[in-house]
């Protein structure tokens, strides 16, 4: 029953967001063909009214809005996200082209910042009140106060320009030919270092603080005392008893911030010319590319709902109490 409720709830949320996402771009002034006539670009692409109408018809934008809405919903059910007007390609293809890079970037940074944040948070809590804790706390609070784009710029200046250690443009060397199969992997990793570091630094504070607080709470729990009374070693208690319990809120938080993690890369993408979903969204807004905008929102929503679902599942595995409720 609980599961069904949850599903109904997710479904309702999806429906609401899909609708917002259909109507919002359409109430904004301008239409997808505006970009075709943007004289602010470095070239006039002139379009006659006749051609405008032809294109509106071609993209089905001349139909009544209710009809568009229905065909949009039907399309989604069939897994057809439509055709991106600006990119002239299937929306799914456009999104997937960017998604791999976003996932690489977000995935790498999350794979580093979550464990590292947990580790540091636990360390800090374990050493509560000692110099180590204070030092960690102040330094992590400090680096977390850097907006990601500012941090990225500083990294570019120092490691990209001054020291010339890392590339600062893009996700890989453009169409380089590699001497070994690992060349490409290394090249991609090399390009990944600075953007991923930026994301790790700007996200680690959240995980760290939550973990520290959660751990402090757990360390105050009676069962930790019980474990100590059994003569278990501090390390063992930390790993076997405290960590598991302290991780529970981290799981929830990480899931809740998935949307932010994915979209937050837009700043890093801008600074490092990294291809990703953030810039895609920005362009989709500028070009009023309705199908693409809808596609990105759908994807984001699914990612968020999916992450919550996964978090729920993991939570059940981690916390036996939830299962029986």
């Amino acid at each position, binding site marked *: 029953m609980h599961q069904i409720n949850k599903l109904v709830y997710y479904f309702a949320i999806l429906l609401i967001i899909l609708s917002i996402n259909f109507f919002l771009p359409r109430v904004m002034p301008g239409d997808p063909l505006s970009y075709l006539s943007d004289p602010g670009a470095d070239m006039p692409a*002139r379009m006659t009214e006749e051609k405008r109408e032809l*294109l509106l018809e071609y993209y089905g934008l001349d139909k009544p809005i209710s009809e568009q809405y229905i065909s949009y919903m039907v399309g989604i059910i069939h897994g057809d996200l439509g055709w991106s007007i600006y990119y002239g390609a299937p929306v799914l293809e456009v999104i997937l082209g960017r998604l791999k890079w976003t996932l690489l970037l977000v995935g790498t940074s999350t794979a580093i910042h979550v464990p590292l944040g947990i580790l540091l948070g636990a360390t800090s809590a374990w050493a509560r009140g000692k110099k180590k804790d204070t030092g960690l706390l102040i330094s992590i609070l400090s680096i977390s106060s850097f907006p990601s784009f500012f941090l990225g710029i500083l990294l570019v200046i120092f490691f990209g320009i001054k020291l010339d*250690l890392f590339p600062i443009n893009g996700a890989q*060397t453009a169409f380089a030919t590699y001497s070994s199969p690992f060349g490409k992997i290394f090249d991609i990793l090399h390009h990944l270092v600075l953007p991923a570091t930026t994301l790790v630094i700007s996200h680690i504070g959240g995980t760290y603080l939550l973990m520290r607080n959660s751990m402090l709470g757990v360390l105050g729990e009676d069962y930790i005392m019980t474990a100590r009374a059994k003569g278990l070693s501090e390390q063992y208690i930390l790993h076997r008893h405290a960590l598991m319990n302290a991780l529970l809120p981290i799981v929830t938080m990480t899931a809740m911030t998935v949307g932010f993690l994915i979209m937050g890369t837009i700043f890093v993408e801008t600074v490092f010319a990294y291809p990703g979903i953030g810039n895609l969204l920005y362009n989709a807004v*500028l070009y009023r590319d309705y199908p693409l905008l809808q596609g990105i929102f759908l994807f984001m929503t699914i990612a968020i709902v999916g992450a919550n679902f996964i978090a729920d599942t993991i939570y059940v595995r981690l916390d036996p109490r939830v299962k029986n409720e």
Partner: protein
Amino acid sequence: MKKTVLILAVLLCSVAFSASVLAENDRVAATSDKTVRMAGGTPGGSDWGYPSPFTFYPRGPGYARMSLLFDTLTWKDANGVIPALADGWKVSDDGKDWTFYLDRNARWHDGTSFTADDVKFTFEYMKDHKGGFKWFDATSYIDSVDVVDAHTVVIHLSDPVASFLVDIAGNVPMLPEHIWKDVSDPLTFKDDDAVIGTGPMKLVDYDSATGVYQYEANHDYYDGKLLVDKFISREVSDTASALQTGDVDEVSFWGSEITAVQTFESDPDFEIKAGPSFWVLQTIFNCEKYPNNDREFRQAIAYGIDRDKIVSQVLHDGGEPANTGIMHPDSIWYNPDCTAYEYDTDTADEILDSLGFVDTDGNGIRNYPDGAERSGDITFDLYTTGKYNREAELIQADLATIGIKINVKTSDWGTIDGYLRSANFDMVISGHGGIANPQIMRIPDWPASTYQNSEYDSTYAAQEVEMDLDTRKELVNQLQEMVADDLPVYTLYHPYMWCVYDPKVLDTWFYTRDGVSIGIPLELNKLVFLARYGDANENGKINMQDVTKIERMILELDDETDMADANQNGKINMQDVTHVELTILGRAPIRTR
């Protein structure tokens, strides 16, 4: 704990370092081919679409990337129109029938010969798929196309088109019939076949996400030897540093980016070429809405805007105050006699006073006269996209001194376009490119769509079909004067352009006469990749001794050339030829005077 962090950090660094070493090796390995890399744009702005004629994004850079693969009948170099797929051409007296003699050596990338059938097919295909070629609607002028023989084709127009050689022959990419005849929806056709053209480059790879294009040279090109093996256009986060760190070999700057250009001036590793942008920034007035519907009011505003200051403060002198008649000073259409509204607040005040706009409540802002459509302080919104905030701020300050209050509102182009379309605005700042071609002055395509003047419209229509260049120029001059006097738009400035490049990699960069195609102010003209015809020592000049055969020479014969035919045997007497101008690049026409 500290140990763990340290180990992690070291790990990161070592991966990075080994990667950099490996990547370095790879780059060295890759340079056995001669590769040219250019900065295609900044994040989100370096993807210009799949470079088929129907899927590139209809912007200058998109067209330029497509035009490397697809040739047109004619093309342009630094001096003007040159032959491309057509070796030569002639036009009938009424200007309606154009005969093109096609290059016999031209081949499609798949080896098939290019023939007159392809030309006929191209125009018919575009007619059948109206709206498909978003870039330019070429077909409305064309009546029919006749194939005379495999290498001769006649294009019949319904009305004469004065700019036919540039706007249509030099703009419409030729399609291979054997590929496109089976394609029903060109907007979705993105196979490898969709990029088979006759051009000097072949597409190797394209990635929309990263905005990277990779081309390889078409070494079988019919129109000259290629100087490079590969060409890459890629996204960079910062153009100046990308050039400096060697991520790219060529970047382009414009306008206020002169500051970046200056940093390269003293650098011996780089060379700089300057060129015109054929672009203007203008304030668009709503000629249908009070108070901007009053011509004199608009003139007062024009006097009240200090364009020199905008050029010096915002552009850092990387441009010039604009021709109030719109056409770019470097174009042949430029009318130097348009009213120039020299900055003069006294004149502006006088006009406003005489119109009854007086500051009655003493708050420093003029008031609308009693009984007018609006009342209270003169205040209205100035819309701009984020790009021109700086200019808007200056205008706001300038107009405040003549007692007009402006609220700067920024919005994206989609929104502003909506306002323009519905004539729901007071003033908009917006740019306009391609001002080397009178076609941009057509209303209502032009953003000044609220301007209504039947004389203007008829003059425009007249110049469109006027085949005599001088007469046409005169008509275009009149159009410019009307714009300058009536001020449906008030032009602000023309920025300059620069390309900064590493001459060791490629040193043939140049700016095209009146812009690539219909006025793209880019240095990315396919001719930069071609060795100049007969230029054995590659010094950029043709070696006459290398010219062994001239297949066909085209002379623009007029009355004066006849005079060189002293013995009147119908042939020119070479001793009368005082000057031979050889146009560089490709197989250039030899002009005689």
